[in-house]
């Protein structure tokens, strides 16, 4: 905290040298809202979004003295952004098309609440030109660029033409609109494989498919056009040369309505799964000052070419020779904007509001610093062991952000008790750490991830932690292929070294003994204790993974002396068995662990180095007798198909009695706007179908049975 204050103070000085009448108002870590009370701004602003980004916007509004209006769907009635805002209005039921995308309802709220401006956040209506137009027609300020820029940049084809004209490097083999599968194949062949196919209107990596041959092109065309139609009501597609092994590096730009435009350095966003970003950082280890300037200048040139105002992001693919190609421009605040705020000290939301109000930028390109290093991890409610992350839903039974770790910023819109539902993005929060250099920021991230308590839903902390400590990542040797390259057989969690395994076993055994000792302490009992002398040593057998390890624990004052694999370890802790976080010192090494669960049968799961390990701890006697326990028959999983995630059944392509071959599509599940094809695990006859199109299914629900 002290460090942060110093950090903010640093910027205060910097601003004061610029313009001494501005005062610094900030309560949030790692960016500064430099607010001039004499600068008139909006009185009331509506946030047309939910979750963390709505909360993020409200925070800056509060500092600027702007009243806020939140909109929400009925299931979000108790959401954090609703509580934070000065006013909140329900705009419809849970499905986004009926609430957060419901322009009529939102316009009605704007009229009723007399909001003067609308911040759209990201996603939803943030890049919807129709929404911007309707706002303009009612004299309400849209916090973002004008309709023209949204339209130009929202269309992938038009944006590339514009970029070309503005002398921005574009991807080779770029082509036009696709009408059918045959044309898709023809275009793909012209460009040369591999090609990338995606919905023209879609943002980010959603719906992006890569084809290496004609057949995959046809399949990609089918999926992408379906998704394009269902998600955007616009079935145009884009096919272009796919750059193998690229980095995804983007430039934050900030422009005003007076023709000024700045580039606020880059963000490295190469760590992605299924084309969605997972870990971002600023600056990038890969860019030298020349490349950075070249990219920045091209980004600014593009912004100026479309008379861009507000904050925007120009995304580039960068190949191994530092050639960079324009990918697209996002005409909104990006999810990963905090890393830019950390290294520049700017409050991008505030700058967006100022620009929208018509003020000129307060800075020149020379004022934009790169101070330190910032890393952002997107913490998702998803199971990282299934294709690097399949959505998980549920109630956050316990939730505690690692804000006690210094230089940590958490942007979230949820709290303990919140539901992660199938209706919205499964992001829990953005966890940002800052350091004077990259190593420091990464070290803090490690600590922050270990101290993050998330219970009730699956989460990707284990994957995030493995990524940030992976030698390739630490060296900066990354590309958008990082995850599939590093984990070709899928992510399996942290691999324990011999020492780490011993540490885990010693910790688990000590916890077990601490629990046993506590369960013998009864307070205020009127009976004379009949227990013989207190036990001081335990012979245990710990089952971890495929191994069974004999562990001997002896109590040594307040610490435990544990013998594992012939090695003695000393384990010390306060042993607070109710706390979700437990700080344990094992032979001088401090580890923050989390005991996720335990039961009377000695089964326990412990989060250690980010990964949750299942263990069973039994006394030696019980372990010896357990060989007599009957094996319970496990379910044959090849003849049944269960839903890997919660979602909606889009289509079922089989009926009872049908013959299916291995790998054949059986049904399609849509979850979080992604269509997932469920395939048969073996060849056989369909015995029963337990779902139909339109059904909502939960994780592990039985879909189809084969004979």
């Amino acid at each position, binding site marked *: 905290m002290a460090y942060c204050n110093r950090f903010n103070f640093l910027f205060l000085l910097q601003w004061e040298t610029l313009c001494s009448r501005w005062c610094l108002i900030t309560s949030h870590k790692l960016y500064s809202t430099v607010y001039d009370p004499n600068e008139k701004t909006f009185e009331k602003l509506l946030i047309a979004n939910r979750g963390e980004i709505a909360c993020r916007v409200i925070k800056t509004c509060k500092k600027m003295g702007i009243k806020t209006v939140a909109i929400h769907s009925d299931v979000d*009635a*108790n959401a954090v952004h609703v509580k934070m805002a000065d006013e909140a209005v329900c705009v419809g039921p849970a499905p986004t098309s009926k609430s957060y995308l419901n322009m009529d309802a939102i316009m009605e709220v704007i009229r009723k609440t007399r909001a003067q401006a609308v911040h759209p956040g990201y996603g939803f209506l943030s890049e919807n030109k129709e929404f911007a137009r309707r706002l303009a027609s009612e004299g309400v300020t849209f916090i973002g660029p004008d309709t023209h820029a949204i339209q130009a940049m929202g269309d992938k084809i038009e944006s590339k033409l514009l970029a070309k004209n503005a002398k921005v490097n574009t991807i080779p083999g770029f082509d036009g609109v696709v009408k059918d599968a045959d044309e898709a194949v023809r275009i793909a062949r012209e460009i040369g494989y591999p090609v990338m196919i995606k919905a023209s209107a879609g943002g980010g990596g959603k719906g992006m498919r890569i084809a290496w041959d004609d057949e995959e092109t046809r399949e990609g065309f089918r999926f992408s056009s379906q998704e394009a139609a269902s998600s955007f009501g616009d079935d145009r597609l884009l096919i272009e040369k796919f750059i193998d092994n690229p980095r995804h590096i983007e430039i934050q730009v900030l422009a005003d309505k007076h023709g000024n435009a700045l580039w606020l350095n880059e963000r490295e966003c190469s760590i992605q799964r299924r084309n969605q970003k997972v870990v971002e950082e600023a600056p990038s280890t890969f860019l030298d000052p020349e490349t950075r300037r070249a990219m920045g200048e091209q980004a600014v040139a593009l912004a100026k070419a479309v008379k861009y105002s507000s904050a925007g992001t120009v995304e580039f693919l960068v190949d191994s020779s530092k050639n960079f190609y324009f990918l697209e421009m996002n005409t909104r605040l990006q999810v990963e904007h905090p890393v830019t705020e950390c290294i520049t000290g700017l409050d991008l939301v505030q700058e967006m509001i100022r620009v929208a109000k018509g003020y000129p930028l307060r800075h020149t390109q020379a004022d934009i610093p790169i101070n330190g290093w910032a890393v952002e991890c997107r913490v998702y409610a998803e199971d990282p062991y299934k294709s690097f992350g399949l959505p998980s839903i549920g*109630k*956050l*039974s316990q939730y505690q952000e690692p804000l006690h770790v210094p230089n940590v910023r958490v942007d979230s819109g949820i*709290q*303990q*008790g*919140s539901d992660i539902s199938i209706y919205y993005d499964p992001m829990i929060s953005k966890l940002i750490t800052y350091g004077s250099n990259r190593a420091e920021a990464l070290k803090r991230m490690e600590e922050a991830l270990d101290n993050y308590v998330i219970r009730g839903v699956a989460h990707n902390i284990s994957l995030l932690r493995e990524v940030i400590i992976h030698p390739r990542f630490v060296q900066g040797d990354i590309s958008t292929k990082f995850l599939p390259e590093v984990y070709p057989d899928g992510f399996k969690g942290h691999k324990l070294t011999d020492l780490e395994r011993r540490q885990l076993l010693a910790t688990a055994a000590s916890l077990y003994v601490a629990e046993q000792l*506590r*369960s*013998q*302490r*009864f*307070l*205020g*009992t*009127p*009976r004379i*204790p*009949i*227990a*013989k002398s207190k*036990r001081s040593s335990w012979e245990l057998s710990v089952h971890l993974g495929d191994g069974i390890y004999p562990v001997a624990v002896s109590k040594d004052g307040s610490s435990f002396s544990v013998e594992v694999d012939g090695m003695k370890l000393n384990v010390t802790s306060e042993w*607070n*068995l*109710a*706390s979700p976080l437990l700080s344990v010192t094992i032979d001088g090494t401090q580890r923050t662990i989390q005991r996720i669960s335990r*039961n*009377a*049968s*000695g089964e326990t799961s412990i989060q250690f180095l980010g990964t949750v390990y299942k263990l069973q701890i*039994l*006394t030696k*006697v*019980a372990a010896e*007798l*357990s060989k*007599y*326990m*009957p094996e*319970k028959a496990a379910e044959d999983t090849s003849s049944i198909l269960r839903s890997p995630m919660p979602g909606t059944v889009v289509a079922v392509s089989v009926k009872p009695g049908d013959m299916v071959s291995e790998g054949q599509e059986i049904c399609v599940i849509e979850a979080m706007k992604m269509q997932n094809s469920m395939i048969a695990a073996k060849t056989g006859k369909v015995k029963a179908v337990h779902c139909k199109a339109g059904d909502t299914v939960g994780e592990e629900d039985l879909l189809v049975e084969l004979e």
Partner: protein
Amino acid sequence: MAAVRVLRRAVRLCRGRAASGARPPPVPQRIEEKRRAALLGGGQARIDAQHKRGKLTARERILLLLDPDSFDEYDMFVEHRCTDFGMDSSKNKYPGDSVVTGRGRINGRLAYVFSQDFTVFGGSLSGAHAQKICKIMDQAAMVGAPVIGLNDSGGARIQEGVESLAGYADIFLRNVLCSGVIPQISLIMGPCAGGAVYSPALTDFTFMVKDTSYLFITGPDVVKSVTNEDVTQEQLGGAKTHTAVSGVAHRAFENDIDALLNLREFFNYLPLSNRDPAPVCECHDPSDRLVPELDTIVPSESTKAYDMLDIIHSIVDEREFFEIMPTYARNIVVGFARMNGRTVGIVGNQPKVASGCLDINSSVKGARFVRFCDAFNIPLITFVDVPGFLPGTAQEYGGIIRHGAKLLFAFAEATVPKITVITRKGAVQIIFRGKEANAEEEYVDKFANPFPAAMRGFVDDIIQPSTTRTRICHDLDVLASKSQSSPWKKHANIPL
């Protein structure tokens, strides 16, 4: 009578030895031999057979249930007294007979245990077997300590006839006399059929082991010949049947080890007798912990479901809740937890199942649990969100009036501290009130207005949901000295 029998047997033994001409081995050696034989039960072959069935032996079970080196065995040298059908031959004599009895400690606290030995005559109950059980039950009642029965018995000792049956009668009588005096727990770890089932049925809690234990009055063969029904042992009296359908058993566990370790944990919730207070464990969970999620967990629409277990877990110490009958009458949740270390009994309507309505099964489930808590000084915390009793002919013909009355009776009769939290709607809140001594609290609710009840003093306070834990812990401290007496009576007449 018994003394005469023993004497006769002794004489016989001496004669036998004299006839063979050899000098009997010295006494210490004989003691050692008998002890070794007792420890081996029915012999290695039968022990192996027991293991093959996925079951542990009577002694192995005791070893896992009790603290290490804490078992003091009784009657290891008792042998059965049957002389018919060749039972008096020495190969049919097993020191200790078909049950191991004694006392020991569970987490340092006293418990009496009997563990039926299936390797000796299939664990069948002889007069001596019954006598051994009765002895520890009598002791347990006198010193005030729970009795745990590990049942694994083929039934009556057929060779002994009425003597065996009389043994059951002796046990039943003690089960009844001890009821409400000391906690009695039965863990069914093998067959338990015929008259034998009534001892577990008379105890406070009956737990089962999945796939290896059965409870029924008559087995599948007899069922087939009488009612012509085809039914397997598992369907008729397996753990699933009794924990989900009949409500005879209170919980089932995966295997012997799982069951015994859970029993150890369960034991820690119980007072040793009705003269002991509810136990208080060392607690690391702050009693003034706020539970912010409670402010949003209950949906404002009165028809929308939520999981009462979420509320219970969030309020109790360390989210630990030992649920009783979790798969039977799931529209009511009952079980044990701790508040600031002190054992409490929790009763909650479950809006997730059948809207949390009260029906015959849930009324009986709730009533029995409340009466156990009241008998053993365990404070009751009730979470109310109930639309009312379930209407319909099935319920009325089944006697919902009589069975529902049990729940009213149990709550009204209970004199332990009672705290009721109305989480949303309390259609029958009046039922749950014990006039003066219970503290009632109510959540603020947008639609179901709590004011009418609060203004008339039917509820004591309207509290912020997030402060529920703090308030309950505080109230329990105050109510610890609660003293309430009922008018003299032989016993009340609960509508059975």
